[in-house]
């Protein structure tokens, strides 16, 4: 197990290193870093001085080492627009994004699991068939368009929910949170639902498939034969065996939810990292883009690693396989 774990961590590090290489190459091969990193309003002499200061006159491999050293020390350059440390900017905005992403995943579970259970237990029921059809729509609906329609109906027409911002926040450990106030929850509801829509369909289908797989198995028949109530069979036996694979999938989905928050945040003016990165791409604020990519890659690789390890701890079959 320890050997496997070390190998897996090494693999994760390798991915991060590969990504620094790709980001570095993107910066230096496709674009001219002098144009990217130095403002346009400098004269020739200032320009040369800036190139020397940034080390752009060094050979490429030396520059790469400098870049990685900086990245390792958390120095990914200063934002052109905000004149602030790029990494700090991202980290300041990240909690808002995490709040949104975690809320969306929770919503996906709270809505998707019960619906999926129902559809799995009664696959021939008309409601189950309607749910399956709806899930195809859920996969097909372009998220950004749904967001606009939500705003149209619930903000413009009905006036029930606010269309933008985080609302009132409560600061805990120096970080503002929306979900701790009623007004904040009001603001959170629509963007979280928008981000959750695709995941609800996914969770529902996975739960349904899991239930359909578990139901015909012997231990379920045995539980029924013991005379357990259908509710008890459902919650204690079917649920438990359906949810383990679901947990791993959801863990992996957290990464993509954070990435797709870019779209939701930009529409609902949610002040998270996704919105910041979009603004930075549009204003060519490359240090912030680089910092965002590095943070998300590290986050993503860490999540994958944790899920992988948890999966090995939870499922004895996989654990045995790796120790052999």
């Amino acid at each position, binding site marked *: 197990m320890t050997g496997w774990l070390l190998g897996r961590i090494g693999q994760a590090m390798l*991915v991060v290193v*590969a990504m620094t290489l790709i*980001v570095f190459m*993107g*910066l230096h091969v*496709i*674009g001219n870093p002098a144009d990217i990193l130095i403002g346009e309003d400098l004269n020739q002499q200032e320009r040369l001085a800036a190139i020397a200061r940034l080390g752009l006159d060094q050979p490429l491999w030396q520059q790469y080492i400098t870049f990685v050293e900086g990245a390792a020390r958390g120095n990914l350059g200063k934002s052109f627009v905000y004149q602030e440390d790029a990494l700090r900017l991202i980290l300041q905005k990240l909690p808002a994004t995490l709040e949104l992403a975690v809320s969306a995943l929770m919503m996906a579970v709270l809505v998707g699991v019960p619906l999926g259970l129902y559809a799995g237990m009664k696959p021939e029921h008309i409601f189950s068939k309607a749910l399956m059809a709806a899930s*195809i*729509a859920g*996969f*097909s*609906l*372009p*998220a*950004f*368009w749904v967001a*606009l*329609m939500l*705003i*149209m109906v619930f*903000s*413009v*027409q009905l006036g029930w929910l606010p*269309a933008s911002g985080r609302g009132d926040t409560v600061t805990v450990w120096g970080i503002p949170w929306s979900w701790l106030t009623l007004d904040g929850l009001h603001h959170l509801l629509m963007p979280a639902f928008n981000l959750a829509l695709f995941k609800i369909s996914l969770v529902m289908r996975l739960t349904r498939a899991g239930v359909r797989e578990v139901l015909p198995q012997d231990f379920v028949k045995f539980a029924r034969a013991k005379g357990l109530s259908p509710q008890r069979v459902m919650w204690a036996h079917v649920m438990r065996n359906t949810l383990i694979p679901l947990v791993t999938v959801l863990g992996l989905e957290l*990464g*993509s939810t954070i*990435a*797709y928050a*870019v*779209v939701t945040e*930009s*529409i609902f003016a949610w002040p998270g990292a996704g919105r910041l*990165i*979009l603004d930075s*791409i*549009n204003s060519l604020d*490359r240090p912030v*883009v680089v910092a965002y*990519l590095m943070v*998300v890659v590290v986050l*993503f690789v860490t999540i*994958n690693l944790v899920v992988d390890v948890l999966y090995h701890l939870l499922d004895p079959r996989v654990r045995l396989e790796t120790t052999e």
Partner: protein
Amino acid sequence: MSIKTEQTSKTAPSREHTIWWRVGQDFLASRPASVALGVLALIVLAALLAPWIAIQNPYDLMQIDVLDARLRPGSLSSEGSRTYWLGTDGQGRDLYSAIVYGLRISMAVGIGSAVIAGVIGTLVGLLAAYAGASVDAALMRLVDLLLSFPTILMALMILAWMGKGVGNVVLTLVLIEWSYYARTARGQALVEARRDYVEAARGQGLSSWRIAVGHVLPNCLPPLMVIAALQVARAITLEATLSFLGLGVPITEPSLGLLISNGYQYMLSNEYWISFFPGIALLATIMAINLVGDQLRDVFNPRLQR
């Protein structure tokens, strides 16, 4: 699956009926899929015939009247000669015309990127299956890495470096999509490579490249076609999303995503139709392709064949 015998088909087609005829029969057995195919055919036709079925060229400034801006669906134009059934946008463009022209760009980008990525990915997949263990391992690790990252993140990354434009969007989609084909093509090629007909071809002294392209590839096509159909839908969605975010196609070549984006600013004043109708067109396109792709998968899946 190409060796399906005649008893397996309920209608017992005569000998001149090809495998494709039977695939068609199986496909049309599902009513939702048939309807989806019909809708898709209409959409493709509308995209192809856009200049002839639109009531105006929405990008010819001579044909647009700013006085007609933001008219409700069903309004008459200011000089009273025509009806805007779906309303007009902020510049006075007929939305119906803008949608059929937008469909052209969305479809072209979606299909174009799927085809290019399909060719590249299939060749890489075949290469991985045939070129030996170390090349295979390297290529498949790369594919794993690409598949494990969310597509939107990859797209943002690539477009952040390269900038906007139709060509760059297609390039981005190709860079993301080829890995799906590569994985499928490799898996299928490895399965096919063990079959007798490959052995027979080898016995005839054909080169391994010739066997790969001439014999194995045709038998790998059905699953690749399913991937292609679903990838077109993904590509159209992603292109629309990127265009909506202002990172996709330029304003001179507006796709459906850009039309929706243009309507965004009018939403808050309750002028819903500018975003609503292009969205419906987008949704219909994606859903139709997804349903057709799902049915294709079922039809081609030998395990589901009776």
